[in-house]
């Protein structure tokens, strides 16, 4: 198809879709209305189970089965990426060169690293109390580790994140979520039922029954998954070279890959 025909098709199809969406949006409920059928019910259910953050209650209790799916999508995406980014027969590894880092950058990165890591863990741990939770905190914690790459070099990063244990951690965290679900089933109620543990005192770390457990499992899964995912892409950018290339790279290996999430 030549570019002109394609453009014409995109214009026609896009115009049709746009017209459809505009017509639909005009029929949406008005902004700022007082009718929130699901929200009202979710808040009530959340308070019944002593979960201060309703979003966490929806994610890890009321619709925990959806979260299982989302968790496994990330897990599958990471596993798939590891398979696709594997070192193929026509590639070999070239050890990365030590890199010089400007002193202010190094100081800043090493100073911020523990703070960022702690922030990540805090966001995970307080998921059922305040905005945040496993998904967000996991990403923060995993990103914190990568400050070592900015502050030192790739070899330093590789020392603190051996891929094997993180891959295993990713899988184990997913299993932990599933095992908690099956425990709900064996414990006499339904799969992923939050009836096994006491709901605790409202607005404390131990409140909400299984919500903190599932939240922690997600936090661990997301942190491990992001580390493994970034490692896969960084390996491709820094270490793995195609047969026939000389293994020398022009840059110092500081390609900045964005996480896929």
């Amino acid at each position, binding site marked *: 198809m030549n570019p002109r025909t*394609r453009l014409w098709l995109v214009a026609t199809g896009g115009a049709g879709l746009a017209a*459809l969406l505009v017509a639909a949006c005009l029929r949406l409920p008005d902004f700022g209305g007082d009718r929130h059928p699901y929200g009202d*019910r979710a808040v009530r259910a959340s308070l019944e189970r002593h979960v201060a953050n309703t979003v966490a209650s929806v994610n890890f209790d009321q619709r925990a089965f*959806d979260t299982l799916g989302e968790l496994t999508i990330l897990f599958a995406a990471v*596993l798939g990426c590891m398979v696709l980014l594997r070192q193929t027969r026509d590639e070999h590894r070239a050890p990365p060169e030590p890199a010089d880092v400007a002193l202010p950058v190094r100081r800043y990165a090493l100073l911020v690293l523990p703070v960022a890591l702690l922030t990540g863990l805090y966001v995970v741990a307080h998921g059922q109390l305040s905005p945040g939770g496993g998904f967000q905190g996991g990403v923060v914690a995993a990103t914190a580790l990568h400050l070592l790459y900015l502050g030192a070099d790739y070899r330093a990063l590789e020392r603190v994140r051996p891929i094997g244990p993180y891959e295993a951690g990713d899988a184990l965290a997913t*299993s932990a979520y*599933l095992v908690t679900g099956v425990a709900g089933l064996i414990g006499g109620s339904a799969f992923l039922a939050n009836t096994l543990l006491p709901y605790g005192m409202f607005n404390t770390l131990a409140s909400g029954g299984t919500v903190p457990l599932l939240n922690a499992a997600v936090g661990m899964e997301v942190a491990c998954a992001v580390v493994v995912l970034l490692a896969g892409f960084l390996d491709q950018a820094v270490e793995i070279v195609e047969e026939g290339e000389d293994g020398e790279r022009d840059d110092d290996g500081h390609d900045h890959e964005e996480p896929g999430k």
Partner: protein
Amino acid sequence: MHRLLPLLVAVPLLGAALLAALGRVLPRVVAESVGCAVSAGTAALAVVLLPHSSPPLVEWAGGWEPVRGYGVGIVLVGDGPGLGMAALVSLLTLAALAYSWRSFDEPPHGHTGAFPALMLLFQAGMCGFAIAGDLFNAFVWFELMGVVAYALTGHRVEEARAVQGALTFAIVNSLGGYALLMGIALLYARTGELAMAEIGRGLDAGGPPDALVLAGFVLVLTGLLVKAAAVPFHFWLPDAHAVAPTPVCMLLSGVMVQLGVFGVWRIHGTVFSGPGGLPAGDVERVLMVLGAVTAAIGALMCWYQRHIKRLLAYSTIAHTGLFLLGVGTLTPEGDDGVALYVIGHAGVKAALFACTGILLDRFGSVDEHVLHGRAGALRGVAVMFAAAALGLAGLPPFGTALGKSVTEEAVGGPLTVLYVVVSAVTAGAVLRVAARVFLGLGPRPREARGEDAYETTGNGEEPETEQRLVRVPDTMTAVPALLLAGALAAGAVPGFADAVARAMSEATTAGLVHTSVHWTPVGIVLGLVSTLLAVGLAAVAVTRPELLAPPARALPLRRLQSGHVGDYVAWLLVGTTVLGVLALPAVLTG
């Protein structure tokens, strides 16, 4: 029993997590055994639950049963069709894993468990989608099966074509996913509900459909039809099937595409079939037009392929069209027929891919012309390939034939002719391949004069095994044989078809409207006619190739399959608009 429904998802997920965790240390044979055992266990669970599906099993995940009619949880529905699909998915996953047993390429170092783990994740996603009673939950599992399928399609990353095919698949299907999500958002905005049945009730309470309902319908349908590979959303499928490993093709063509059709049936029936949804006449128009065009284009393109995997891929598209036609009748007979047809088709199509995989691993080619007369020694494979082709044509007593005859009666009129012709053309193409490749019949096809840039040859494909096979392993021949036996049993075992019909009626009308499904003289004659037509077409094509060679007129059609992702995205947009236009009268008159 209903408490066990979530295990259909949890068991394969747990197996996958275990394989991924221990994948580095497990020897290959253990990893593959675990994969087979877990998928077999899930299949057994689905089969055990099936007899209890009347009345349908309903499970609220987490024990969140609705209080006074209002719920916050997620509902899983284990009715006959849902559990039946889950059983079909699980059995086919088991077949694919058994087929890849020791035959598939050596796994990447340190990732012994990765391939079986991905297959189990694929199974979990498909099972979850089959039993979802909640629209958003269905979307989540829909995405899981997508993500896994992209990775599995691109498994052979050494080949640029594999990466290209997987990327196209990923982009087009992700756009479909976004459309589905937008549709769900619109429906949620209107009703404040996510359970399918509740959304349906909410729409009915809102009076006749308006632009928002129309947009919700069109967007949800777009997402599902991309997965189902209906024209013009189908372009990703041949590109993905040509490069995906054979066991993956068995699942993609055998059940994943059909789950798209299943989703259309399920979501239309629970969400849009009431007075607040779309009027039946408009839905019928949408599905019938799309189904007929899909069937015709799929069959035509199937006939003009020489790359055997692409040929089978187009035959899947053609059959998707036939399924959509059956579902589009919106009658119990149409539903029953399609259900049986899907079961039979899964066995037949997976067997065809399995046989093609043997050719690929033995000769390093899947090109009809290059393989001319070379596979004569593989007698067993030849017999299975030809038998599967006859099953595709609808030769009684295959399950495909019974399903087809029931649907043919339901669609009636000129569409019956389309049914006969489309199944005959796709089966004829497969028989043509069988005659040339296994029997060496007819003149050796000459290479075309000016090599057509848009014709994909199947030569130069890498075998999936480490070296070319000298002896075909028993598992690789046993799997297609069992699949064919299953497809045969679906039509021949007395009572099976009736059980399927009963399950369908239980799911749609709570058992009030029961249609009896059986062989009719007309159905048998039509099945024989399409079989004879297929044999005739193949005979003419082999002996007088120039008579049925692609005319110059067909070239523009073939050029549409350009491999350019931008083209496919453009067609997706056009398709959405076409859906909107076809369904527009629902809003204008309502």
